């Protein structure tokens, strides 16, 4: 039922832990921008849209089966 929400929270904590222990991400660059900036400023948003739609489909399917 709450798998997508748990997945999202796991993803966010994972990213924070990654930033904390892999500072090399600040020095790798994609299109000139530090990779860690992109992983915080851009990446989470499409990921969150994905988790939201997944959660929505799951809830509606459960409801239709009930």
């Amino acid at each position, binding site marked *: 039922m709450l798998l997508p929400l748990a997945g*999202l929270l796991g993803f966010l904590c994972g990213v924070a832990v990654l930033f904390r222990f892999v500072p090399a991400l600040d020095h790798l660059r994609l299109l000139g921008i530090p990779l860690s900036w992109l992983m915080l400023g851009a990446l989470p948003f499409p990921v*969150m849209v994905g988790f939201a739609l997944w959660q*929505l489909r799951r809830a509606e399917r459960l409801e239709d089966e009930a």
Partner: protein
Amino acid sequence: MIVAFAVLPVVLITLLIGVRGVAAMRTTSDFLVASRRISPVLNSAAVSGEYLSAASFLGVAGMVVKDGIGALWYPVGFTAGYVAMLALVAAPMRRSGALTVPDFAEARLGSSALRRLTAIAVLVIGVVYLVPQFRTAGLVLSAVSGTPYWVGVVIAGAAVSVTLALGGMRAATYVQAFQFVLKLVLLVVPAIWLLATVGAGVRHEAVHPVEFTHFAHDTPVTFELDVTLTMREPTPIRDADGVSQVYPPGELPVGTGTRLVFPAGAPVPEANGGRLPGAPGWERPLLDVDGYPLLGTLSVVIATVLGTMGLPHVIMRFHTTPDGRSARRTAAFTVCLLSVFYLVPGIYGTLGKVLVPQLYLTGATDTAVVALPSQVDTGGAGTTFTALLTAGAFAAFLATSLGLLLVISGATAHDLMSGGLRTLRTTVLVTAAVVVLLALPAAPLDADVLVTWAFTVAAATFCPLLVLGIWWPRLTAVGAIAGVLTGLVTVSASILLALFGPPLPGWLAVLVARPAPWAVPLAFAVMIAVSSRGRPPSWARAAMLRLHLGERVPAQPGS
């Protein structure tokens, strides 16, 4: 002049839509939740329009300038909150049929004491959230036009309360859906123009941050607040009369309204003991509070994700959809809309760090967004984009304040005083006046402190109340009261201690300034422990069924 061009159209259009809504409005239910006929797409635009406050439009970029890239965790948490809302509360909350959170609490647990307590929590969250909106409106208007801080605050208060008293939520729905589009366009278009105009050198420096240690060019700075500057080395400063003087290392108190010019090459003093923008650690994507980056970051994530679910003005929005299913879709669409918007503030933040780092000296980094265009172009284009961004900022302020004022007035008139439409309208005006009075001395407070406070109170009161009320049949009224009271008191006491108490060492300071990691579990634990000792209301099972049974979907052939 900029203010007239930027702010007047936003206020006039808001009023116009507000007045059009009046014709359709007859009862309290009409006023509060637009008679529940709003479609998920329109409603999610309105939710986003309402939610994207001055803290999002201006504050995130300002925090990036001041504190670093880690500030981008705020918009991530603000968005993730809607996934939690979608999963846990949206549909059942709508199906409860209750008009407001206090209504829900009373219907589920049958306690009028709990209803009054939740109404008080609505008041606390609403006021703490409204004050930084009014503060930012005042700062922005004074930054772009030179009017005193209080003028902006008063203009803001008048515009919001008149709109709301005339149109109510029906007006707010259309106003806010319109304002989401307006804010998105007004943030994205100037960002593209800025990126194209600043030149390769600035773009390169934006992604290769260096510490702001020396002024790159003659920099005039106007102090809107009292600030204490700390010089590390002899610093030449020109005062308003053009007299140059070299100040020795040490402290220099600067009063409100002072205008100083720092010549090119002068070392940058520290303001109020803060770190310089771009100092080592600025580029780290974590919220480093007193040397505890992981704890600092996760406490903000917890507060924003769980707090969004408990924001009373956002919850109320879900009652304007026809049924539980569309309430859930509203939450999902909202995640999509917010995800587009929140890609942009980081651009302003990183450019602001390069072009207007001196805002750090005055404590007015929240005005970085509107200060940028004039740094890039001193002619007509710069002025035009400043006006557009000011209009967007004012729209952001107006939309959030409409929803918050409505919910505060609803709590006061509907839950604490049980009055009708006339009481509600009067309450709107009185509430706006009170918030204006509170915002006047709030100029020196950081917007992020106030916003975190509101989110944390919501996370430690309404989040446990709603989640347990919806998913746990054994919740009792006494348990709910104990939990809400615990959350409300501990969070407020903790943040007041951080603001006005003695400085604390290490991780203790982090947990006192950002109490979400312990206060939210504590509120849940108290609610569960106290409830376990009592007997749940006799109608609990029936109430749970009503919350969780889907609306009748038309039977599909073959299913």
